[in-house]
């Protein structure tokens, strides 16, 4: 029997309007929901109710001064925050609803003790740091959800396969021993962070695991990064929850990157990540980037079908791109960096 698919969302269908030329726009969510519809699950999909995440919950991962300023900025009509990132009058509510959807997804999984949750929301979140909006992101949705679990003493693995490094998530959990952050991303590329030597602070050495891949990388490289390089660290960490910062902008058709994944590659990545969930009902995927609408729709369908063991026929996984050798070299560099953090933290 197919485990239930919990869809907490969509949000951002109307609100948070960046205009038709901005790639992070409302129509993305329509494309994503087409991908969900392509699964042909009909009424079997569970849509939990959700509202705006409370301020005190957001304040677990963001500075209150930043949240207050974002609220006030939007109340005054918003504007450009940086050359990429905007807020509108309704963006504060949109961001809180996006974060609230993630909280509802985990609550529903917990109540059911089975299934997979998908959180198709915008604005996306993984670039939002403790005290800064950037990279299209205002509130860090996956971080808010993760912090809701670490507040109860649970351990959370965040796998971030968006093509851009999730500098915000890394920043938030840099010193947190209850969160393991694993990121595959193109490098060099925005935001310029995510080097293998960034391994976490003295409170959590080795619990930030950056796996950069070069432009042109194919799906086999990203699979090796997670399945081979990250697996021992993940298994040793033994998470209670697995959350995925699920960007689809590593797709070969995406205009914001030069990696060459197919939608079938995301299905393969999803199968690998599923193995890290300690029990049924402990896996949730949060939409991040993905800006080619056809690629977005196909990748969502392929990813969710893989997780639910539904029939699906995406294009085959891709192989042969650069980056495998570098992954292994980077690992040696990473181990040295972890030693340095330990040494600096020693009395």
């Amino acid at each position, binding site marked *: 029997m197919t485990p239930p698919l919990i869809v907490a969302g969509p949000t951002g269908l109307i609100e948070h309007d960046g205009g038709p030329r901005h790639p992070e726009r409302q129509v993305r969510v329509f494309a994503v929901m087409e991908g969900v519809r392509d699964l042909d699950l009909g009424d079997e999909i569970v849509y939990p109710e959700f509202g705006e995440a409370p301020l005190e919950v957001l304040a677990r991962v963001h500075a209150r001064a930043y949240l207050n300023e974002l609220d006030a*900025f939007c109340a005054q009509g918003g*504007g450009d*925050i940086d050359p990429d990132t905007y807020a509108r009058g309704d963006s504060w509510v949109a961001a809180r609803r996006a974060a609230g959807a993630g909280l509802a997804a985990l609550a529903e999984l917990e109540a059911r003790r089975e299934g997979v949750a998908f959180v198709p929301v915008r604005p996306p979140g993984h670039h939002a740091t403790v005290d800064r909006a950037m990279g299209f992101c205002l509130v860090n949705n996956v971080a808010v959800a993760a912090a809701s679990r670490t507040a109860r003493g649970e351990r959370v693995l965040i796998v971030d396969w968006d093509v851009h490094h999730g500098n915000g998530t890394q920043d938030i959990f840099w010193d947190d021993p209850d969160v393991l952050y694993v990121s595959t991303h193109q490098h060099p590329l925005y935001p*310029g962070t995510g080097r293998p030597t960034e391994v976490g602070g003295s409170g959590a050495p080795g619990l930030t695991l950056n796996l950069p891949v070069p432009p042109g990388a194919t799906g086999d490289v990203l699979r090796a990064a997670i399945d081979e390089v990250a697996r021992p660290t993940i298994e040793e960490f033994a998470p209670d929850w697995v959350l995925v910062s699920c960007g689809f902008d590593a797709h070969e058709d995406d205009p914001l990157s030069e990696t060459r994944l197919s939608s079938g590659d995301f299905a393969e990545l999803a199968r690998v990540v599923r193995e890290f969930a300690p029990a049924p009902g402990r896996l949730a995927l949060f939409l991040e980037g993905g800006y080619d609408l056809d690629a977005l729709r196909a990748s969502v369908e392929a990813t969710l079908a893989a997780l639910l063991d539904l029939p699906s026929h995406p294009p085959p996984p891709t192989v042969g791109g650069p980056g495998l050798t570098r992954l292994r070299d980077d690992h040696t560099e990473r181990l040295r960096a972890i030693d340095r953090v330990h040494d600096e933290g020693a009395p």
Partner: protein
Amino acid sequence: MTASVVVVGDDGSDGARHAVEWAARTAASSGAELRIVHAVGLLEHAGLAGAATLDGDEAIARATSTGLDPGRVHWSVDDGDPCTALLRAADRALEDATTVLLVVGSRGAGGHTGTLLGSTSLELAEHSPVPVTIVPLHGRAGDAAGR
């Protein structure tokens, strides 16, 4: 080790051009090296932002027109938002120099005024490990006063 480095942000805006000129004069008068930094964001990388054609030639020419030795002018691009890229550049400069100054125009390409949110210059002033000079758009380029 270089004695002094002036780091200036260039996003192609009028404010940034003004800041580059001010920074170049300051570098020339103090014997410092000038490092001009251009941050490449998500939109620019995708060719969706106006600054996509920005290269270093104009900024370097503007800097050397003040009399600064071309050998002491360096242009670089860095992935990231302007604030983060400039803070990284300041950190790198601190590894090479005893004195570092960060210079930025008061209004960048975003054109926002007012709060900390949306203002690269105010965010830099809050987070920078080195002194920051914010060059007013309508000030005189030769003025040495920032704020």
